[in-house]
């Protein structure tokens, strides 16, 4: 997506003083250097003190904080920022309105032209970056591709053509931006979890720990990041003239987000969900039905996400001419991994601009859970080229490293083809998909998005695994220390973040993608916690 030659609007608004709800004293806070160079190098050049919090700025952001551009573009938004002399062009006023800048690069360029003549200066061609994927064949390095029956091929071509077309259509990104703001409630806050941090400090051998920040995707409408993608794909569906959508779901969050988008746009919606997941994520089944979707219980195989995905693909084989399949993660055949990543990359763009504003620099690490990998891809993507930021993907370690006991495709799998793309898969020597397990329905999947495989092999992202028990501990820990009940999926990332924080000095910052809220999990978590306390008795 980061086409060469994209004019890079300079000075992200986030590098200016906090433009969140609180202004007042804030506008006197020291500002980041004016005339920041374009994305790619500014952050490195700031590196020596990039993790130094500015105490005037390190405040709890209001609900309107953050909020950079919404489209898949790489460039920072052209929202208000320091002017040429370090003065804010907008006089320090709330940046909400101007924040909704969409856009793939081309769009970015169009916007920039309208608002800032300096952006007319063409950027120099840049060397290839890790973020410059996939290629024209949908490959992330050797991963990705399009391994589907011929029946689906023309629909994938149509989707790719439609997506390429909207990439340069400002109206599309304006529509999406409006929805994300007024319907989803973006931008989501970046919140300093002070009591969780204090807990990490109390556990740390050095008595120190990095500050843990939570990117609050749980506050997005429907309670998880999944809505970012379903609204984008629903807009694509409308553009393709299709009237029905189908989706697979594990935890039910993607199902709910799809049903929500369908209700909003007036589409028919069928959601495939494994019978085991219907049991353990009952709340979301009820929500989907209320939203007018049909929930189709899948009884085949392990009755979880993989089997739901199989059934959704089978449906699509027969309905492809009038139905769009909204894949919920960065998986599947090209162009899905790219599209879903782009729609989710709003998470990382907001996070980055919030960090620049609140921390006056980039965080030391960004941590996210990985099942298929959409929230992780979404928050990582904008940091991939900032190699001084550690990126950590946390997979489901389940009951530990026994066959069938976990769902850690990247940590324990091998390259294979599942659900349309080449990526790390848990499989046997003949390519049969292995059984997997996780307490969290959203991570209970034997594959992973091809871009994660690419990042793993490139050494850019470290992938690790957290067990069911550790995730359950983090689930209760966040609830009791911060008053936030996280999803069990997210709890995996939190568990890793608490460990990682203890290894870092206190002037460092870790951002965790709080991908979803845990209301759906309270019954299942209570059951698992009761089981555990019975066992230990």
């Amino acid at each position, binding site marked *: 997506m980061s086409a060469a030659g994209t004019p890079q609007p300079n000075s992200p608004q986030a590098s200016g003083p906090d433009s969140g709800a609180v202004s007042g004293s804030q506008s006197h806070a020291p500002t980041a250097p004016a005339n920041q160079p374009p994305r790619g190098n500014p952050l490195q050049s700031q590196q020596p003190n990039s993790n130094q919090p500015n105490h005037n700025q390190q405040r709890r952001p209001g609900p309107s904080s953050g909020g950079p551009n919404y489209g898949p573009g790489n460039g920072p938004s052209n929202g208000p920022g320091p002017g040429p002399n370090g003065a804010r062009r907008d006089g320090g006023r709330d940046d909400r309105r101007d924040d909704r800048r969409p856009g793939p690069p081309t769009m970015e360029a169009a916007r920039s032209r309208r608002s800032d003549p300096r952006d007319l200066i063409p950027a120099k061609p840049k060397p290839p970056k890790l973020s410059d994927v996939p290629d024209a*064949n949908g490959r992330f390095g050797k991963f990705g*591709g*399009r*391994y*589907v*029956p*011929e*029946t*689906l*091929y*023309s*629909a994938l071509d149509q989707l790719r053509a439609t997506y390429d077309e909207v990439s340069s259509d400002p109206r599309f990104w304006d529509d999406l931006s409006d929805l994300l703001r007024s319907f989803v409630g973006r931008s989501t806050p970046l919140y300093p979890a002070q009591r969780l941090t204090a807990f990490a400090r109390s556990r740390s051998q050095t008595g120190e720990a990095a500050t843990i920040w939570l990117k609050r995707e749980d506050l997005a409408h429907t309670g998880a990041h999944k809505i970012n993608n379903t609204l984008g794909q629903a807009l694509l569906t409308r553009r393709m003239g299709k009237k029905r959508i189908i989706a697979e779901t594990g935890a039910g969050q993607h199902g709910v987000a799809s049903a929500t988008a369908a209700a909003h746009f007036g589409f028919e919606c069928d959601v495939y969900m494994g019978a085991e997941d219907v049991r353990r994520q009952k709340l979301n089944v009820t929500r989907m039905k209320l939203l007018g979707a049909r929930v189709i219980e899948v009884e*085949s*195989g392990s009755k979880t996400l*993989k089997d739901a995905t*199989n059934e959704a*693909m*089978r449906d699509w*084989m*027969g*309905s*492809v*001419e009038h139905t769009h399949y909204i894949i919920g993660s960065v998986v599947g055949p090209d162009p899905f991994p790219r599209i879903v990543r782009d729609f989710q990359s709003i998470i990382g763009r907001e996070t980055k601009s919030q960090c620049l504003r609140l921390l006056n620099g980039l965080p030391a690490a960004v941590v996210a859970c990985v099942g298929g990998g959409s929230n992780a891809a979404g928050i990582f993507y904008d940091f991939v080229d900032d190699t001084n930021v550690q990126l950590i993907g946390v997979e489901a370690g389940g009951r530990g490293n026994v066959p069938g006991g976990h769902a850690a495709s990247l940590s324990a799998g*091998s*390259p*294979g*083809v*599942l*659900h*349309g793309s*080449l990526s790390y898969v848990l*499989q046997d*020597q*003949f*390519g*049969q*998909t292995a059984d997997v397990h996780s307490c969290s329905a959203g991570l209970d999947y034997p594959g992973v998005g091809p871009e994660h495989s690419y990042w793993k092999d490139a050494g850019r992202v470290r992938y690790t695994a957290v067990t069911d028990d550790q995730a359950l501990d983090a689930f209760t820990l966040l609830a009791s220390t911060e008053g936030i009940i996280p999803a069990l999926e997210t709890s995996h990332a939190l568990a890793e973040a608490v460990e990682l924080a203890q290894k870092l000095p206190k002037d460092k910052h870790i951002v965790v993608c709080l991908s979803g809220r845990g209301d759906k999990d309270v019954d299942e978590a209570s059951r698992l916690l009761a089981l555990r306390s019975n066992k230990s008795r």
Partner: protein
Amino acid sequence: MNRVANNFFELSALSEPALMPFVCGGFPRPGATAQLLPALERAGAKFVEVGIPFSDPVADGPVIAAAMHEALQNGATPASVFDEVRSIREQSRLAIIAMVSYSIVHRMGGPAAFCTKAKEAGFDGLIVPDIPFDESTELQAECKKLDLSLSLLIAPTTLVDRAIAIAKACTGFVYLLARTGITGESGGMPEVASRVQRLKEHTDLPIAVGFGISTPEHVKAVVSQGADAAIVGSALVRRMRDALANRRDPIAEAESFTRELSRGLVHVG
């Protein structure tokens, strides 16, 4: 001459269309495939598709998917299916075609390694339902090198120019899908005449039609619409399963159903 090409050549000399039964390797029990293949040959089949069981066959409907899952549960592997085929190879004139997911091909070392093993086991050709034409260059080259036929799929949703390009990349025969959707029995009559005709303007290869072909009437319909072969999978697998449930011999059932289906092979030409 490759057996696929040879058997089609012999039939075309007689202006006779072919029936291509599909069986799931290792189903309904280990060792069944080695018995089934001679039985289908006795029933008059010149070609058989053997599905290599896969855990996640997204192009297959419930009947074949369930057969594959059962075969896997009973311990079937690509290697065991290869062994069964190898055990009857000497005594059979059947053209035996492996229907295999690319997931398996990739995991077993990629096209070169997989094709070598398949050839060595006695297969004469491959159908890989989940590799699109654009990803199949290496597979085409390996099949050509080893004289295995490679039949790529053409769907009703495939645009004309692309269909022609796919047909030209096939060897042995072209696999034309009778309808969108997954494998499975179907009530409606297949409608393929115009697509078969258009393809025949661009390829001399025989055209086999599959998906939803489940009765002698369906077989008759597709061959009288110009197809050179009719592929029957789910209906045959279901007959075998029903026979098992009624304590009858599934192998004998497959043989008699294949004879029944062959009644649809009206003489053309």
